[in-house]
């Protein structure tokens, strides 16, 4: 607790709060992350609307039916949208500058969130010249696999 302002003026009380959670990955996402360890990107398919979900869904949120079919999807895809993160926010995992991207992997029907890297990101103008809508990207695997989303290190530009 610290005084921010002189006496008689309303003060603030400072604290840091930590709360730990241990959350179930679930069988569905467990299978996805196991796939990443083997350098495979797995999705699930809705038998009603035929859309393929990556990350896999155990159910289709629209048709509200179980997704039972698993498919391996492409490791390349096109850039649906992207941005250039230039400012560090508390709670952020990656340090700016970095390039979050939505990739539509070949054979899937929706954007998959990851990042583009593999070249100098420090100059925005240079990044903009290289990263294009609809541009092709390819997954680059991390040598060390931990069964997390960073088993795909990043997506590189396919030139």
């Amino acid at each position, binding site marked *: 607790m610290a005084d921010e302002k002189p006496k008689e003026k309303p003060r603030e009380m400072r604290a840091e709060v930590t709360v730990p*959670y241990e*959350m*179930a990955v*679930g069988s569905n996402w467990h299978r996805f992350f196991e796939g990443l360890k083997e350098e495979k990107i797995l999705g699930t398919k809705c038998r009603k609307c035929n859309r393929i979900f990556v990350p896999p*869904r*155990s*159910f289709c949120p629209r048709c*509200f039916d179980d997704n039972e079919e698993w498919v391996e999807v492409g490791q390349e895809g096109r850039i649906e949208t992207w941005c250039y993160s230039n400012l560090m926010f508390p709670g952020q995992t990656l340090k700016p500058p970095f390039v979050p991207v939505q990739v539509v992997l070949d054979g899937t029907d929706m954007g998959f969130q990851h990042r583009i890297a593999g070249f100098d990101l420090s100059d925005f103008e240079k990044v903009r010249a290289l990263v294009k809508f609809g541009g092709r990207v390819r997954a680059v695997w991390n040598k060390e696999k931990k069964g997390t989303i960073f088993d795909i290190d990043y997506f590189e530009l396919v030139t």
Partner: protein
Amino acid sequence: MRKMAIAQFAQSAGVESKENLMDFTYRISKEVLDKAGLKRSEVGCVVIASSDIFHSGLSCANAIDWDGAGAFMVEGTRAEDSMFAFIYACMRIMSGHFDTVLVTSIVKGSENPENDTLTGFFADPFYMRPLGINETTAAAMQMREYMQRCNITEEQCAKVVVKNLGNALFNPYAHVRKRVTVDDVLNSDVVSDPLKALECAPKSEGVASILLAAEDKAKKLTDKPVWVKGFGTSMDHFNLGDRDLLNGQLKIAAGRAYKMAGIRNPKKEIDVAEICEPYAFQELLWCEKLGLCGDGEGGKLIDSGVTQMHGASPVNPSGGVLAMNPYVSRGLYRLIESAMQISGSAGGHQVDKKVKTALAHGTHGFAGQCHSLVILEG
């Protein structure tokens, strides 16, 4: 008032689930819709109950809860407590804007730190929090006051645990299912004197889902509609020290629900009550305030045996919150049990008597700061 009924419901069993929050939610809301033969897109609106009381480690829980609750592009919203969610769903039907509302409540206790850690976040940061007030310490002080002012004994409080955990043996949806004796309860570890470990509710996980429908629709969705006759909520002061812990707001909340349901003599007219008793003695105190016995007579009530599963006025045939405590969802669990009792589908924990009218109660906050209840009828 527009008539409405619980048409279908589903609940998860108390065992810890290895599925993630999203998939866990989907299974239960899907079950309800399948029972009703209703497509997700045919639902009028969705009300989610999930909590920001740091339950789940995710802020704005409706973001991740939305898909599993079947709410994609359906009119929807989220309430902070499942009783609130249900009452709000009733209002939406009463307004005439919707004919069906799917209410789904979500909490995965196994993923969270202890209840005391989480309920400690109710407290203001300056005064009650640095003194360690949480639901358990607040309840402990309430219990001592209750024992002193109303001559309630520790044995009487322990009997509630024996009864409720005994009932839970017959309830496949309960979390804690074991036979205990009064001595077991009295000899269990002291948590916050006079509260002992077996007198405090566990930390459970539970997804529960109810399909509420207006009269015409309900009759199409089920053979056994359970009608909503009334509801009420009320709120007490925030500071524990500003309140009379034995005469809180439950009487007022109940008065509202009884008036709406046309109940004059709750003791006679309520056939079964499902009461939210995270701490054993609270069942006795809440029974008094609900008019199920006279003021100060909670001890006599448990001694008399009428609240036993096969007694004249069964209370918590499900085993109550002492046997199953998915914090945010526990209100819906009380409602579902009440609906099961009314429709005669409670199986091993079905009470002996014919149940026409049932009461479902929920509470949250320190020592019952906020109370809600709903009256259901066959």
